């Protein structure tokens, strides 16, 4: 197709050819083309098939308002080809057709429209019920547009998070004027524009701005100012996704040839927002109003002005606004044959335009409107009707340019919680109640005069500046005066549906919803837009409300012909433009923490697992029973990295009071040189944390928490003391210190290699705490603990020294057969001792008493200890879950432990297995379980139900933990 190459408004480089593959055919477009315009230039007229009736659909608009232009582009289904810039070598494929868009084998569905009234899914297919799954399969197959590409790799997805003073949405004359006005007040501005260039509706219009400057020239003038203004950061080809409360916006930018990214997620927080999103067109509803060949005014006009493509050979116009007349005149000038222009309005037009039309050979028909389009696949003829429906005239044509007028893009305002109201003069939903710091500008107020639009933009910019403390009241007042002098909003048409038989008049293209469907739903009680759209699905498709947004309320209002209720706008929800998940996901960080001994464990072939924010070593070999690791701890010496434990310093005059508040024990007995084991509960008496506490100096405590609580302990303690005004400081040292536990009968010998301090049981007994220097240079806090049930020393040293300490210990331990052990070995070792792990043996239903740990509770009502009230109230409660030990007994295999999570049953479920393992040292299968107290007595026989066991039960018997070293000699060695 020949391009118009001389136009100053072109955005293409006609000389630079780009290639694309469409439906396996190689075609060429030119640089600057969108995929859609390139296809159009190659004579493609049927772009897709509709979802329900498989009606042919063509290019209708150029701003992606409907699914008509959807294709799979480079593997991405449902791509809006009209807003996607053509890149060399693109692969484009049609969707939702069997065959090609021209010859779709499912075309016959169009003849069954009568069988698919609103909500027909709900009245059919479920009887007889046995057939429903089959019908459902068909429905699934028929639904949906494109196919997901299973192996799609995508490209580079960037993220940008900005803070600014004013965000301006829309780079048309109003938005640019607003940005400049605010920027000139010294503020920082972010401006975003959806099209690949600034200019808005001025951008392609040859109508005069002033006598000697056409509008497109004015657009370029403003754009140059924006581009060189140091305070303005502007983003083109950037679509607004959401405008949220507190003036935050999200948008995504499409990467151009020179950008290093394919798409970029942009989030901007600002003080104030200017919304200058202008208008799209309100579709004209008539019979077959979506036949290929029917297109909106802007589409036809921009095809020529921006892309150098005349939309066809002969076009009939049916419009309701001056811009439609302007386009007709211009396209006529450019060589398009226009037999007739029907204007819905009888009067109110710009007289100059009427004059020019009358002088041309175009037949200009006031009070006329498109009635019906003919043509099997493409438009071949149109019947125009007088708006009262009494007269008819038909014209042969291959293009129908149809538009009822404009409709403001007020989605951003709605998202920002503005209230809109139907305005009788313009026929628009205009801003009525605005949230603070949100300023609509330009055509959102219904303005059409270029100077009024700019003036309104500047005013919005100044108002936004005032929100940021940079007001210029005088200037604002002047502008207000000026705006009063300029032409106000144009009167708009309110015509909802063209007269004639209600045949296939489409309100929503995406979902194939006709006027008839809307009425049917109204009949059924869905007679307000919000309900109607849910029942008919109008506007819920991927065109994101663009086509039916304004018409649906008007059609419904028409249904209520006698009522005085004004049309109601419906809710718009983000994202305003369909957005790739890849773009939302952005850079996809996988953030986790490594302990300071991570590398050393890696060298020892640790198998790591994510545990909360950490990566921790779970096994040190592929033997997941951890036999060697466990036996090493029992017989020689093992080493485990416990750096993830929470580590805290709490000091100050009221430090003890704070401890008494959160710890269930009596913390006044904590003394130097000793650790005290204690626990924290929540206010239901449920165990939430345990650890040890020691006193390092007067009013200066050091304590540990479980890994899971490290992040929230500061918050917790300060929360529970927030009313008290106590004087203490709390420092989270978790990341400052690493921690290593050395456990096993030979632990003392290994540690003596690193220190001359007396480590004997007498000098440094169980629960002792010592500060010493290890390996000559590592200051360490060493404590004797017994979690794993063998003699053990836990060493806390600064993070930077932890790796070195690990290395020293490994070297010193070599002669003693030292081995690292991981979380699973530790899990078995501690279970043998009956020690609980929070979340594994405890849960929301269990109190400290239920876990058999009630002994830790010390009554000190004056401290108002968190959890104490509940512990008092539940002390003697019956019918609770209790933690018990059990061992496997005949007839089950006494050496086979049930799997964790198996349930304990008789006639009903009575509890579950928390942890159970075969114990190498005891040579029997043992475990801990939570069971109803009736079954918690020592010696009770339990039946265990494992998943997939086919109701074969396992047998166990309640025994008293600990299972191993009952007297605790080994930890006190």
């Amino acid at each position, binding site marked *: 197709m020949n391009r118009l190459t001389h136009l100053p408004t072109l955005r293409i480089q006609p000389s630079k050819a780009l290639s694309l593959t469409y439906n396996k055919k190689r075609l060429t477009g030119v640089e600057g083309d969108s995929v859609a315009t390139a296809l159009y230039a190659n004579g493609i007229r049927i772009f897709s098939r509709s979802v329900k009736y498989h009606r042919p659909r063509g290019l209708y608009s150029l701003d992606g308002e409907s699914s008509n232009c959807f294709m799979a582009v480079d593997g991405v289904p449902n791509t809006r080809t009209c807003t996607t810039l053509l890149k060399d070598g693109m692969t484009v494929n049609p969707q939702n057709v069997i065959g090609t868009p021209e010859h779709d084998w499912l075309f016959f569905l169009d003849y069954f429209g009568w069988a698919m009234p609103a909500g027909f899914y709900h009245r059919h297919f479920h009887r007889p019920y046995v057939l429903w799954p089959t019908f459902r399969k068909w429905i699934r197959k028929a639904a949906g547009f494109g196919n997901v590409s299973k192996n799609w790799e995508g490209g580079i997805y960037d993220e940008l998070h900005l803070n600014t003073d004013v965000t301006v949405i829309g780079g048309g004359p109003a938005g640019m004027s607003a940005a400049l006005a605010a920027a000139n007040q010294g503020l920082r501005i972010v401006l975003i524009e959806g099209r690949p260039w600034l200019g808005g509706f001025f951008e392609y219009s040859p109508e005069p701005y002033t006598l000697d400057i056409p509008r497109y020239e004015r657009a370029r003038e403003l754009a140059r100012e924006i581009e060189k203004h140091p305070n303005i950061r502007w983003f083109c080809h950037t679509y607004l996704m959401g405008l*949220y*409360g*507190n003036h*935050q916006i999200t948008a995504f930018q499409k990467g151009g040839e020179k950008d290093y990214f394919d798409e970029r997620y942009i989030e901007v*927080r600002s003080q104030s927002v200017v919304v200058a999103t202008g208008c799209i067109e309100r579709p004209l509803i008539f019979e077959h109003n979506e036949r290929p060949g029917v297109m909106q005014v802007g589409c036809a006009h921009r095809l020529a002005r921006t892309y150098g493509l005349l939309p066809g050979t002969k076009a009939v116009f049916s419009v309701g606004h001056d811009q439609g007349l302007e386009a007709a005149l211009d396209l006529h000038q450019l060589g398009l044959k226009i037999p007739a222009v029907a204007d819905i309005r009888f009067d109110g037009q710009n007289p100059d335009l009427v004059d020019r039309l009358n002088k041309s050979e175009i037949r200009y028909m006031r009070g006329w409107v498109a009635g019906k389009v003919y043509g099997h696949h493409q438009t071949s003829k149109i019947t125009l009707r007088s708006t009262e429906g009494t007269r008819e005239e038909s014209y042969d044509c291959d293009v129908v340019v149809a538009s009822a007028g404009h409709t403001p893009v007020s989605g951003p305002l709605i998202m920002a919680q503005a209230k809109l109201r139907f305005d009788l003069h313009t026929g628009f939903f205009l801003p009525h109640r605005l949230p603070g710091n949100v300023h609509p500008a330009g055509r959102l107020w219904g303005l059409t005069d270029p100077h009024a639009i700019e003036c309104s933009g500047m005013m919005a910019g100044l108002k936004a500046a005032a929100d940021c403390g940079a007001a210029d009241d005088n200037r604002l007042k002047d502008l207000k005066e000026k705006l009063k002098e300029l032409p106000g909003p144009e009167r708009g048409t309110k015509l909802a549906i063209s007269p004639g038989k209600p045949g296939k008049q489409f309100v929503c293209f995406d979902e194939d919803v006709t006027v008839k469907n809307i009425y049917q739903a109204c009949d059924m009680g869905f007679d307000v837009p919000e309900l109607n759209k849910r029942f008919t699905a109008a506007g819920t498709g991927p065109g994101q409300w663009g086509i039916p947004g304004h018409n649906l309320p008007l059609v419904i209002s028409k249904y209520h012909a006698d009522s005085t209720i004004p049309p109601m706008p419906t809710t718009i929800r983000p994202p305003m433009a369909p957005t790739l998940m890849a773009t939302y996901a952005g850079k996809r960080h996988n953030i986790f923490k490594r302990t300071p001994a991570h590398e050393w464990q890696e060298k020892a072939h640790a198998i790591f697992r994510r545990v909360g924010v950490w990566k921790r070593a779970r096994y040190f070999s592929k033997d997941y029973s951890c036999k060697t690791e466990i036996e090493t701890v029992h017989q020689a010496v093992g080493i485990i990295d416990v750096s993830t434990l929470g580590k805290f310093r709490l000091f100050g005059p009221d430090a003890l009071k704070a401890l008494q508040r959160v710890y269930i024990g009596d913390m006044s007995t904590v003394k130097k040189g000793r650790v005290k084991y204690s626990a924290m509960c929540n*206010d*239901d008496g449920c165990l939430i944390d345990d650890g040890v506490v020691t006193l390092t100096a007067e009013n200066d405590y050091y304590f540990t928490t479980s890994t899971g609580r490290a992040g929230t302990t*500061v*918050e917790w303690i*300060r*929360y*529970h003391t*927030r*009313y*008290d005004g106590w004087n203490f400081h709390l420092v989270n040292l978790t990341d400052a210190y690493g921690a290593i536990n050395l456990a096993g009968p030979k632990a003392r010998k290994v540690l003596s290699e690193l220190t001359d301090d007396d480590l004997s049981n007498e000098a440094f007994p169980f629960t002792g705490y010592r500060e010493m220097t290890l390996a000559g240079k590592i200051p360490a806090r060493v404590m004797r603990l017994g979690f794993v049930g063998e003699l053990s020393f836990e060493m806390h040293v600064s993070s930077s020294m932890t790796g070195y300490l690990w290395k020293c210990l490994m070297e010193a331990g070599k002669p003693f057969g030292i081995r690292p052990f991981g979380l699973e070995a530790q899990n078995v070792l501690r279970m043998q001792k009956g020690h609980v792990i929070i979340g594994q043996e405890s849960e929301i239903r269990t109190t400290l008493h239920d876990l058999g740990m009630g002994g830790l509770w010390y009554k000190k*009502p004056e401290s*108002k200890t968190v959890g*104490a*009230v*509940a512990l*008092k*109230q539940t002390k003697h409660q019956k019918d609770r879950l209790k933690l018990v030990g059990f061992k496997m007994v005949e007839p089950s295999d006494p050496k086979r432990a049930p799997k964790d999570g198996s349930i304990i049953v008789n006639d009903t479920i009575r509890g579950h297995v928390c942890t159970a393992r075969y114990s190498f040292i005891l040579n029997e299968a043992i475990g801990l379980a939570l069971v109803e107290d009736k079954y918690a007595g020592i010696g009770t026989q339990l039946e265990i139900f494992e998943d997939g066991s086919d109701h074969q039960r396992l047998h166990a018997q309640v025994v008293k933990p600990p299972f191993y070293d009952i007297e605790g000699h080994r930890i006190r060695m």
Partner: protein
Amino acid sequence: MSLTITCPICGKRNGYEFRYGGQDKGPRPEEDGLTPEKWAEYVHLNENTGGIQKEWWFHRSGCGLWFTILRDTQTNQEIK
């Protein structure tokens, strides 16, 4: 809806930096003579105000302070 909270130390910040700490219910009651019902009321029952309420917030990704603000639960706006 996005929320902006003014921390007494750090100023206006993104709401997701904070942790909500409940409506201001006053200090922990004296334990003497506390019935289970009264206690559950303090611990679990909430006013669920539909409007302005005084509530606790903790600046988690910030200075680590617990403080109170007034917020309208209908609009999610902080009230100054």
